[in-house]
C-alpha cells in the first residue's frame, strides 16, 4: 500500500548517503518527484544520485534553462525542471510520453507544476530547509514498488537520524 520515511540531517554528506542508499535500492524504472523550495538542494541531490551510479557530477547541472537533461549511465537518468513550465501542455513539447515509458530514472524538480501528468506509480522526495546546513528529507510513495527504497533508508537510520559512525 505504500509507505514513508523521514530523516533529519545536519550535514551535506548525509544527503549524499541518502542518495547512495536510494541508488542501490531503486527499481530500474522509477519516477521521482523532487520537491523543495529554491535553494533546498534539489539539483545537489540529483548530482549525488547520479554520482552513485557513476555519472560525473560535473555533468549534472541545473535543468532550469534546458528543461530536460538526459544522462547516460548504467541506468539512464532523465533530469527535468518544471520550474518554467506553465502546465502539462508544455510537456508534449518535451516528448513526455516517451520519457515516462522509457526505462531508467526520471527526476522531476518542481513537480507540482505538472502534477496531473505525473504517474501515481512514483516516489516523492521532499527536501525541507530546517537550518542553514540542516534539512529534513521525506520519502513517500503510494506504490509498493518503492517499498525497497523506503525500507533501505529506514534500516540505515534510527529515529529519523543517521548514527554518527556509519
Amino acid at each position, binding site marked *: 500500500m505504500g509507505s514513508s520515511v523521514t530523516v533529519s540531517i545536519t550535514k551535506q554528506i548525509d544527503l549524499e548517503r541518502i542518495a547512495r542508499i536510494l541508488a542501490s535500492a531503486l527499481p530500474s524504472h522509477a519516477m521521482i518527484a523532487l520537491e523543495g*523550495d*529554491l*535553494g533546498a*538542494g534539489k*539539483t*545537489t541531490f540529483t*548530482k549525488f544520485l547520479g554520482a552513485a551510479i557513476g555519472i*560525473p*557530477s*560535473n*555533468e549534472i*547541472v*541545473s535543468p*532550469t*534553462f*534546458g*528543461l530536460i*537533461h*538526459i544522462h547516460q549511465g548504467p541506468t539512464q537518468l532523465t533530469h527535468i525542471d518544471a*520550474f*518554467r*513550465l*506553465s502546465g502539462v*501542455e*508544455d510537456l*508534449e*513539447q*518535451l516528448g513526455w510520453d516517451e520519457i515516462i515509458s522509457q526505462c531508467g530514472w526520471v527526476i522531476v524538480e518542481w513537480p507540482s507544476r505538472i502534477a496531473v501528468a505525473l504517474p501515481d506509480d512514483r516516489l516523492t522526495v521532499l527536501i525541507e*530547509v*530546517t*537550518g*542553514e546546513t540542516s534539512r529534513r528529507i521525506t520519502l513517500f510513495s503510494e506504490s509498493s514498488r518503492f517499498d525497497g527504497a523506503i525500507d533501505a533508508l529506514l534500516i540505515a537510520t534510527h529515529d529519523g537520524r543517521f548514527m554518527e559512525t556509519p
Partner: protein
Amino acid sequence: MPLLTIETTCDETAAAIISKDRRVLSSVVASQDELHARWGGVVPEVASRAHLERIIPVIDEALVKAGIAISDLVAVGVAVSPGLVGSLLVGVSAAKAIAATLNIPLVGYDHIAAHVYACRVAHGDAMQWPCVALVVSGGHTSLFHAISPLELNRLGGTIDDAAGEAFDKAAALLGLGYPGGPLIEKAAVGGRADAFRFPRPLSSDRTRLDMSFSGLKTALRYVVRPVGVDPVPPPPTGQKRADLAASFQEAIVDSILAKLFLAIQHTGAHTLAVGGGVAANKRLRAAIEQFAIQQRIRVLIPPPSLCTDNAAMGAIAWERLEQGSVDGLQLDIHPGTDRTKAYRS
C-alpha cells in the same frame, strides 16, 4: 551578396542580413520578455508559438531594413544548437524553406560559438584567435580556449546554475521579476557590494576552471527567507535590497574573474573575448576591463545589443561558407550542449 541569419534558440526571434565583409546591414530582434514576465521565465510552448508568429515578419523587416530583395540572398545561416527543441525547429524550418526555395546554401551554426563571434562583428580585426572566450548568459556559463571561430575547446564552466539563471532566481527571491539580470543591476545601484559576504564557491580552487552559483542563491535565500521564520517575510526593500543586490552581483563577478585569471594563465592567451546576455551587465564589463588592463591582455566585449541573443552574431555562418562547408536540407537541431571537455590541470 549578403547572407540571411536566423536565431530562435530561446525566447528571442531574430534575423539579420550580413555582407561578406561581416558588415551588419540589418539586425532585427523581437523579444518575448513581456510574454514570459508573468510566468517568471521562458515558457517553451509560449516560446515556440511566438517564434512561429514572428519569424516571417522579423525576416521581412530585416530584408527591408537592409534594402535588399529576398532574391539577393546568397545563403542562409541558422543557429542549430543549443536551445529549446520547439524554438530551434521554427528557425531551422524557416531557414530550410528559404534555402530550398531560392536554391542557395544552408549553413547551421552553434549559438555559443556565435556569441564569441559577436566580438568579431563588433570589433573587426581587433578580434584575434586563439583567445580565451567567456560566454555568460541565462542558460550558459562557460570558458573556452577558442582556437579559431569554429573551434572551441571547453575549459570549464558552471557545475550547477548558469550566472544568468542565478540572477533570475535572485530577482525572484527579492521580488523583482523577470528577466533578473537587468533588474538586479538596477536594484544594485546605490547598494554596498560588501554589505553581505556571499560565498564564492570554487573561486579559490586553482585546479579547475569550473564555477558554481547554486550555493550563492541558497545563501541569499537564507537572508531573505530566514529559516524558521513563519510566515515568510515580504521581500526586502530600500537600502537593504540595494545592498543585497549589489553584494550578490559582486559575488558573481568575483567568481567569474577568478576563473578568467586561471584561464588566461593556463592558455597563455593574449586576447579575451566575452559574449552572452550577462556580458551586458555594467559591473561585470567594468570589472573585466579592469582585469584586462592588469593582465595586459586585449579584451573584447560587444555592445549590449550584440551580447543578448541576436542574429548579427550569426555572421559566423560566413566562416563555414568560406570553407566551402554547407549543410543539406537534412540539417538537424542539437538542443543539448557538450559538457564532456572538462579541463583538469
